[in-house]
C-alpha cells in the first residue's frame, strides 16, 4: 500500500496570534511552527500501517522553504520520503490542486489528511482533493482499517459515530482517535539522524489561482471583566443568567 500524508505547517497551539502589514498578514515573528495536530494523528496511523501491513509512507506539504523543518520532523517520525511543493499556500482550493498533482503522479492508494488545519480552519482541502482526483472521501475519521483494497472507517457525526466502508483509493480527513494521544510518535535521536538522509523532493507548483483571498485580519474585541458571584449566593447567578445574559 502506498500512503501519502498531507501535512499543514501551522503555528503551535500556544502561539499569540498577531498581524502585520496593516493587518493583512499573519505575523510569524517569534512563532513556533509545528505539524498540524490533526495531521500528527494521521501520520502516526500511517506509521502503524507501515509497521503492521508493510506500507510505504510519503509526506507532502505545500509551502515555502521555511516549512522544511516541519516535514523533516515527519521524516524523523518515520515517513520514508518527503515532497515539498514550492508555492505559498493562499487558500484551500489552491492547496488541493497542488496536492492533486502530487497524488496523481504518485498513484497513492490512501491519502491521509486532517479534518482541519488549525490556522485557517478551512476544513476543505481533503474533500476537494478527493473530488479532484476521483477518489473516495471520508471526513472526521476517528478510526481506519484497510484490508486489501477495502477500507473500514469510523466517522464522527454530531452526537455519535458512523461506520463506513469504501474502496481505495481513499482520502480521509483525520483527527484524534485515529490513534490515541499517548501513542503519538515523537522523533527520537536515531529518527532525527536518519531523517537527514531521507529524500526531500522539491517540486514546482502547477500554480493554480486561488478562489478566495484573506484580505484583512482582526482580533476579537477585548473582553469585559468577569462578574464574580459568591458561592453562597447561587440565586444571584441564576438571576444574572436569566435576566441579564438571557441564557436560561
Amino acid at each position: 500500500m502506498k500512503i501519502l500524508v498531507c501535512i499543514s505547517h501551522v503555528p503551535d497551539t500556544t502561539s499569540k496570534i498577531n498581524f502585520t502589514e496593516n493587518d493583512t498578514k499573519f505575523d510569524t515573528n517569534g512563532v513556533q511552527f509545528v505539524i498540524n495536530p490533526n495531521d500528527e494523528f494521521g501520520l502516526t496511523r500511517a506509521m502503524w500501517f507501515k509497521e503492521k501491513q508493510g506500507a510505504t509512507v510519503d509526506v507532502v506539504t505545500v509551502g515555502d522553504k521555511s516549512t522544511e523543518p516541519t516535514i523533516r520532523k515527519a521524516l524523523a517520525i518515520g515517513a520514508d520520503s518527503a515532497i515539498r511543493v514550492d508555492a505559498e499556500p493562499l487558500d484551500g482550493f489552491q492547496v488541493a490542486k497542488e496536492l492533486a498533482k502530487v497524488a496523481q503522479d504518485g498513484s497513492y492508494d490512501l491519502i491521509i489528511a486532517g479534518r482541519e488545519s488549525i490556522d485557517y480552519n478551512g476544513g476543505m482541502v481533503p474533500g476537494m482533493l478527493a473530488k479532484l482526483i476521483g477518489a473516495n472521501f471520508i471526513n472526521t475519521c476517528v478510526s481506519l482499517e484497510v484490508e486489501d483494497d477495502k477500507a473500514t472507517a469510523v466517522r464522527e457525526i454530531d452526537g455519535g459515530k458512523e461506520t463506513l466502508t469504501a474502496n481505495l483509493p481513499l482520502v480521509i480527513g483525520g483527527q484524534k482517535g485515529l490513534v490515541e494521544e499517548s501513542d503519538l510518535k515523537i522523533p527520537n535521536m536515531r529518527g532525527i539522524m536518519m531523517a537527514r538522509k531521507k529524500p526531500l523532493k522539491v517540486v514546482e507548483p502547477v500554480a493554480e489561482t486561488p478562489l478566495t483571498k484573506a484580505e484583512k485580519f482582526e482580533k476579537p474585541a477585548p473582553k469585559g471583566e468577569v462578574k464574580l458571584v459568591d458561592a453562597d449566593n447561587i440565586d444571584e447567578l441564576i438571576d444574572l443568567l436569566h435576566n441579564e445574559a438571557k441564557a436560561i
Partner: protein
Amino acid sequence: MSVLVYTESENGKLKKAALEVASYAKAVADAIGGNVTAVSINSDNNDDLANYGVHKSLEVSDEKLQKFNADAYAEVITQAAKKVDAKVVVISQSANAKYLAPLLSINLNAAYASNVVDVPKTDNEFTVERTAFTNKAFNHTSLSTDVKILGLSNNAFGLKESKAEMTKEDFSAELGDDHFKINVESVDKNTDKVSIADAEVVVSGGRGLKDPKNWGMIEDLADVLGAATACSKPVSDMGWRPHSEHVGQTGKPVASNLYIAIGISGAIQHLAGISASKTKVVINTDDEAPFFKAADYGIVGDAFEVVPKLIEKLKDFKANNA
C-alpha cells in the same frame, strides 16, 4: 439573483440550524437582491421555512437518501443550485454540511468560505467575515468565483423571522451508482441526548473533578438545563470521558448560548475552541485560573459544593418558569 440554502432535517424534521441558515440566506438575498430557495432531503414538513424568508422550497424525497451520503447529498444540492441558477449557496457547519461542502465546491466551481459569522459585503468585492486561528482572530475573505458557497457558523446569526409566500416543488436529482460508493454500515447515534453541535447549553468538566465517578453531578446539571456534556482534553485523554466530548482547539468547537466550565483552568487551547459561545460561566477553586479572564460570570468555589446547590436552585427556577 438567487440564493440556495440547504436546510437539514433529522428523522424527517427540520433542524433548528436549518431555520438559522434560512434566516441568514434571506439576509444574503437582500444584500445581493434576490430570492431564497431552500432544498431539503426527506424532510416531512417545510412550512416553517416560510417564516424565515424562504420563497421556494425544493423538496427531495428519495429512499436511497435515507442515510446521509456526502457525495449523493452534494450532488442533489449541485443540481438544485444549477436549476435555480444560484449565485450563493448557504449551508450550516454541522458535521454533515462540512463533509459535503468541499465536494459541492468542486462540483460547482465555487469558492467556499467556512466558519462565516456575518452577512457578506458586496459594495466592491464579495467579502465575508469568518473566524480563523480557532477563534483567536477574524478574517475578511473575498470570494472571486461567479457562484459562492458560504458555511455559516452555528449560532452566529440566530433566527430572524420574515414572512414569505412560499411555493413548494417536488425535486428529484439524478443520481448514479457513482454517488453511492461509500457504504454506511451502521450508525450509532445517541438520540436521547442533544449533541454538542446542536446544544443551546453545554456543561463541561475538567481535571478539577478528579475522578470519572464524579461526573454524576455534571450529567445532572446538564439534564436540568437540557444541555450537552463536554470535557477538557486531558479528561478525554485519560479515558474519563469519551473523545467525542473533548472540546477546544484540537477537539470540537463550541458555539452555544451558554457554556459552563467546571474545574477547567482555561488553557489557551481550551478557550480558543469554546470562545464563540455567547455566555461563559466558570466554577473553579482557584481565583487565579485563566478562565476567569475569559468568562462572563464566575464563582470561586469548590465544584463539589457549588454544583449540587446549583442543580437544586435551577430545578426550582425551571419549575417556576416552566
